[in-house]
């Protein structure tokens, strides 16, 4: 791969999928410092792996494969460390909008915790689903069949909805 093409693809990933990659990290890491570390690790691995991108899959599919694989390796290594807890959002302002914001922050944190507690495969599937990646593409990323992905999405969403109501 020519250096200019590699550079252009990398910039395309950052531009089009940068926020999705940050959210992916939030699904794997509860502690902000470790989340940032994981983000850097994913970006560095994407840059290193780009010369191997053969354009047989879409750039997004390839990117998600690499990102989830790096995150899986990271989570496996981090399993030796004690699990950290993210600080709970607090209310600084008594206005109704601030209260609604706090409630949303707490719900988001609850969702992150529920996702981080899922088994790796379920976590990958739901994170891709939440990013609105089509199920056929999720199947291509994970190596499962589309039917299996569909069943799992339904089951995981039910589990998350139940967890959010608690």
């Amino acid at each position, binding site marked *: 791969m020519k250096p200019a093409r590699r550079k252009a693809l990398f910039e395309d990933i*950052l531009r089009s999928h940068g*926020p999705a990659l940050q959210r992916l990290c*939030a699904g794997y890491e509860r502690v902000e410092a470790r989340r940032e570390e994981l983000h850097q690790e994913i970006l*560095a691995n994407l840059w290193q792996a780009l010369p*191997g991108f053969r354009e047989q899959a879409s750039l997004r599919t390839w990117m998600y494969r690499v990102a989830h694989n790096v995150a899986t390796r990271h989570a*496996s290594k981090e399993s030796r460390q004690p699990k950290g807890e993210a600080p709970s959002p607090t209310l600084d302002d008594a206005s109704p909008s601030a209260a609604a914001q706090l409630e949303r922050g707490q*719900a988001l944190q609850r969702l992150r915790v529920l996702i981080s507690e899922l088994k*790796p495969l379920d976590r990958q599937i739901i994170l891709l689903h939440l990013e609105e990646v089509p199920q056929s593409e999720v199947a*291509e990323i994970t190596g*499962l069949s589309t039917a299996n992905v569909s069943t799992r999405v339904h089951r995981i969403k039910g589990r998350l909805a139940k967890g959010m109501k608690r």
Partner: protein
Amino acid sequence: MSELEDLWKSQPVAEGPDPQAVRKDAEGFAKKIWRRNLLEWAAAALVFFFFARSAIREGELLVRIGSGVTALAAVYIAWHLYRFGRLKPAADLDTQSYAWAHLESLRSQARLLRRAPLWYVGPLAVGMGLTMLGRMPVEGGDWLVWGLSTGFVALFCAFVAAINLRGGRKLAAEAEAFEASLEPDSGG
């Protein structure tokens, strides 16, 4: 969009990093790995040439045999590391295949470390032991220096074996925990 998707996508994200800085970091890391590998090969070459020279030039037979064994051990260790030490699955495998390949890589690294007393410390210890025996002082020689040197070599070998075994145990525990998180039949 469902409520969960909406909530998930609403989370604040930081401003993206500078692509040039990411590229620089990634290349810096790759260079660091390259330098570490080079250092390992240079160390093996140094041990080989030093002991091979002793094996040819020394007068005492036991020292020559010990030095020869140590030189061969350096080559064997370098080969062993090259052959078994660099198993890393391709980063762009589908995530299921990657997970199983990662598990295999963890197991293989754990095995490598736990067997270090056999393929790493053992051959070196045999060679160094024979060399030290060949250098044992004759009547009136300096037993204190010989004893201290031999003790140092023995302690060093024991220390290297212990840290490898400890690393192997940690990796084996990581592999076990990782395997427990995988699903045996998630293929189709």
